[in-house]
């Protein structure tokens, strides 16, 4: 049962530079599971993504081992990865936000 308490994020593929949060994560929380060592930089809602590696501006966001878009600014480890710092490669989500 200890495992349930420990697992806060889900790594979907080893190539990924993000993980999916299974619970809401607060600023300053430390994630140490699955070989990760990151400190949460902003409040991240459940189901949203957290950077597990530093991602430079224009670098790809990798989820499921595939590129799902690119960073519009430098993203630090532990930072919330979403529409405020990511755009799709093919189709912009700007008009929706």
């Amino acid at each position: 049962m200890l495992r349930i308490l420990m697992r806060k994020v889900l790594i979907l593929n080893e190539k990924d530079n993000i993980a999916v949060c299974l619970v809401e994560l607060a600023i300053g929380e430390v994630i140490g599971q699955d070989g990760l060592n990151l400190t949460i930089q902003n409040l991240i809602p459940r189901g949203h993504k957290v950077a597990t590696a530093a991602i430079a501006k224009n670098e790809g966001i990798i989820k499921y081992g595939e590129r799902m878009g690119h960073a519009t600014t430098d993203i630090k480890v532990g930072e919330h990865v979403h529409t405020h710092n990511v755009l799709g490669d093919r189709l912009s989500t700007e008009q929706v936000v």
Partner: protein
Amino acid sequence: MSKELMAFERSDGRWGLRNHVLILPLHSAFSATARKIADESNGAVAVSHDWSGEIDGDFDRIVKTISGFAANPNNFATIFITIGTPNELGIIELARKLGLSKAEVLNVAELGSMGKIAEIGLQMANSLLKEAKAVSRVSAPWSAIKLGQECGGSDALSGITANPALGVASDRLVELGASSVLGETTEILGAEHLLAARAITPEIGAQIVETVARYERSINYEGIDMRGAQPSRGNIEGGLTTLEEKSLGAAKKAGSAQFSGVFEFADQVTKPGLYFMDTPGHDTEQLTGFGAGGINVIVFTTGRGTPTGSAIVPTIKVATNTTMADAIPDLIDLNAGTIADGLKTLNDVGGELFDLILEVANGQLTKAEKGLHHEFSLSRMYNTVIR
């Protein structure tokens, strides 16, 4: 080491995972009679539909669907109820050509009354069921499995629990030599370039891209713009950032294997490997198209607990979340929500699903089969023209 696969070998070398006697009306007017025969028999199944012989833009698509469904290798025999028109008799011929070895015909033009059809049909069905019972499963190669992938009633967890768990099971099956088919063109829109990059040749990749582009042209023609609102505000609130991300979640059903080809709707799936089939997002139309393409087992991932099943193709329901799986246990075969609960890993659940597919292939009934969810629906592209 997993258990051995045991299946029904058909005379043309195809493999059935079930041994159904199917009652199939070739005109909508015989739907009630078909169902009556099945209900009164010792275990035959029936489907009903709304085609009444129209010869319009959808004629070829409908003929392909009905003949393919009749010839699915899960059918030991198919009893056709026909008005006797050349087009209907042509469907029976096509089914035979596709490999249906036992095709029985109840011709209204010859038998005269519906009472007579029901009476003779029942005798025929029970006699075929007796014959079917005498046939045993034999050891089968992995290529006997033709898996169809479906998702319906998706939610925020679909892309991280049930769909990738299916991907793990699909990858294992493909590696062993089975066929696995991703469908639902609507649901890969936005990620097709990423799937195309996984094609074994550039030509197949271009075909995947063109299949989606063709679909997009058709919806643009109808005046619908799907892209402006994708991902939706609700998706974004749930954590989905880009359209590619959303479609990748749906496409996760196909795992990480390479794509060996692209099928048109209801094309016959004959070779091993992972394929994409151009099917509609509508669950029942897609399940019917898979059945018509010779797919003999389906995994259906669901966030809301869609009950839809098929009369002849066992359909395994995988829940994306534990709340729904607990609420409707009579519809769900496996709960992948345990991944999000932190209780199990993707590989755990993917392995469980692989084992379950094998059990179901070997004869274990799915919840949809037990609940007699025998949906059937013809896919149409054009307005129906009565002639």
